């Protein structure tokens, strides 16, 4: 009874919410003021160093957002690996004897690496960029991991942490360096914009992949025994 009432109430609330939202969207779409932001953006696209407006917004106009976004990723990574076991990642059960998976690994991993590289490069003038590349890279890692490749660097150690921090650090350094050069923060020195963005994108790709992979690894598998950690303080 209560359950029914509850579901009824929730449903009603959600429907009302949706309705209100839709009405609001409808109204706004009807009377919205076409802002001048896109024009402004295309006017300034030249100065941004990349051709693709989205990437320009991400890595130049609103690069601060991106910096923080990477920060969020790093945080998630840190919080994740703080949960991770310290024991060896060498888990015999994981190593698969499945030949199909093995073959898949053999064929797909290089392909995916190339794809990641392409996505990264393409971000300058087409949809794509560091995140997409990083995601693909991480997927590669997941594949490897599922195939039983130990990937020692994913053990919570300095290496992992360095990896996590790399992209972020470089981004940060660039931001500060530009200020040392006398410009505003996160302002790229004229002429070097393109180069710097590419550098940033590449390290970011690495870091993003690292974070996602670390998070994947951090989650305990279903029936792993975990007697010691967390149960005592």
């Amino acid at each position, binding site marked *: 009874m209560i359950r029914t009432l509850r579901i009824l109430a929730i449903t009603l609330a959600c429907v009302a919410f949706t309705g209100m*939202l839709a*009405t*609001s*969207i*409808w*109204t*706004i*779409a009807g*009377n*919205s*003021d*076409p*802002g*001048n*932001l896109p024009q*402004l*953006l295309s006017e*300034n696209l030249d100065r941004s160093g990349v051709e693709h407006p989205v990437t320009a917004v991400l890595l*130049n*106009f*609103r*690069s*601060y*957002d991106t*910096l*923080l*976004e990477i*920060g*969020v990723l*790093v*945080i*998630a990574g*840190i*919080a994740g*690996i*703080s*949960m991770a076991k*310290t024991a060896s990642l060498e888990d015999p059960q994981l190593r698969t004897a499945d030949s199909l998976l093995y073959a898949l690994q053999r064929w797909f991993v290089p392909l995916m690496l190339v794809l990641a590289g392409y996505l990264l490069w393409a971000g300058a003038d087409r949809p794509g960029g560091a995140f997409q590349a990083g995601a693909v890279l991480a997927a590669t890692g997941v594949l490897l991991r599922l195939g039983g490749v130990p990937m020692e660097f994913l053990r*919570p150690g*300095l290496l992992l*942490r*360095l990896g*996590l*921090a790399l992209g*972020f*650090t470089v981004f*940060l350094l660039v*931001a*500060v360096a530009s*200020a040392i050069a006398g*410009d*505003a*923060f*996160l*302002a*790229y020195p004229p002429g070097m914009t393109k180069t710097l963005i590419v550098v940033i994108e590449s390290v970011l790709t690495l870091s993003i992949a690292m974070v996602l992979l670390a998070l994947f690894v951090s989650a305990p598998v279903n029936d792993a025994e975990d007697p010691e*950690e*967390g*149960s005592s*303080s």
Partner: protein
Amino acid sequence: MTLWLMAGLLFTPLAWAVLTLLTDFSRGRLVTWGGILVQVLVSLGLWLTVARDGGFHYGLGGWQAPLGIELRVDGLAVTFVLLTAVVASACGLHAGVYIDPDKPWHRYFWPLFWFLWSGLNVVWLGGDLFNLYVGLELISLSAVGLVALGGKANALRASLRYLLAALLGSLVYLLGVALMYGQFGTLSIAGVVSWLGVHPVPAGSGLALALMVTGLALKTALFPLHRWLPPAHGIARSPVSALLSALVVKASFYMAARLWLELGEPLGNLAAAQLVGLLGSAAVVWGSWLACRQPQLKQVVAYSSVAQIGYLFLLFPLTYSVSESVSLQAQQGITLQVISHALAKAAMFLAAGNLILSAGSNRVDALTGVSRFLPFSLFSFGLAGVSLMSLPPTGGFAAKWLLLQASLGSGQWWWILVMLIGGLLSAAYVFRIYRASFLESAGPDRFYHPARSLEVIPMILALLALGLGLASDQVLSVMALPFEEGGSP
């Protein structure tokens, strides 16, 4: 100069997060000390600069709004920046001693701590709706990480609850941002305001504000949405609880308040304002009542946060369609409430941590006789409690006074009752702790005595909360500083 101060503010926490990520706990502590020094100096410097020259907009990356992200550096923002510097450094210093360095996962405390700090600075200074969203997420995730640190089941449950609430809140906020952008075509708050200055108020945009405020209220744990807060704040390490209660919930409130103050008049309506006020009042009463009934010390303090946050939401009714002076009084009152609650609650959590450390248990009953052996921490706890009870001369009192005046001035006398009842209820739960600690136990000193530095830090915070009342006029005068529209370093 200002440039460097801004850089220090925005980037050193991030840099320190990276640095501490690469070290272990003990070295991280050393690094953190350095970082705290830098942060405090930079915050102070910026505060002084603003106090001297007035506030300004700061465009990041050389791009001005609406294209780029513009920060709004005004008196209020720098005051909160300074507050953050004080409270966070206190928590950081306390944590450095308090947290057991031998546990391997504690090394991640420092990077999370620094990310949290940077997120806070983003929110205080943010003038861009989306940037604020990212800042919020930065705060939420690092806070969740801090709560979950150590990874016991209870902590995990609390942090999951917290994470889900925070994520939902952020999404709702983001939905509001989407509607805003759809309506006004800009993400800068100042841009929206100026747009509204020349155009008539468009229909349907009220929902955007409502969504944003709702999302933020969820993150701030306003009354019916408060259930995630006590477990999370109660179960975390004391310095973490202190950070969460003192600063993290304030960040989302700060955003809601800014939005309301800038956009509430055109986009809000009276019923909504009163509703929010009503919820705040309910939070005051309900939170205090539950605080009185908690068996565990930190739960008491955590529910007290729910109650104290309730006061903050009185800002909404007290600034909506009232006279300029009343609105100013309410704003000043809420500002003081935020500051004093931050200081007092941090002091309280840190002191509670000391008490728990020495009593060996989180239960209120376990404090029997502690006043005999640990008067210093208890005294800090008490002083902080005085501020929560909003007794003079604390900042809490000054805040309540201004709110009382604002309520009287706007004829909304019903909030007065809320404040008085809330004050009494808060006294009830604070005195409940005293009572337990004053109970004489026959036994000898069975308490662990924490390090002196652990005891000093909450005391300093509590004294600051106390002194705030005496200096509140000076503090608030920063809010009235001139602001150079479009001015830039």
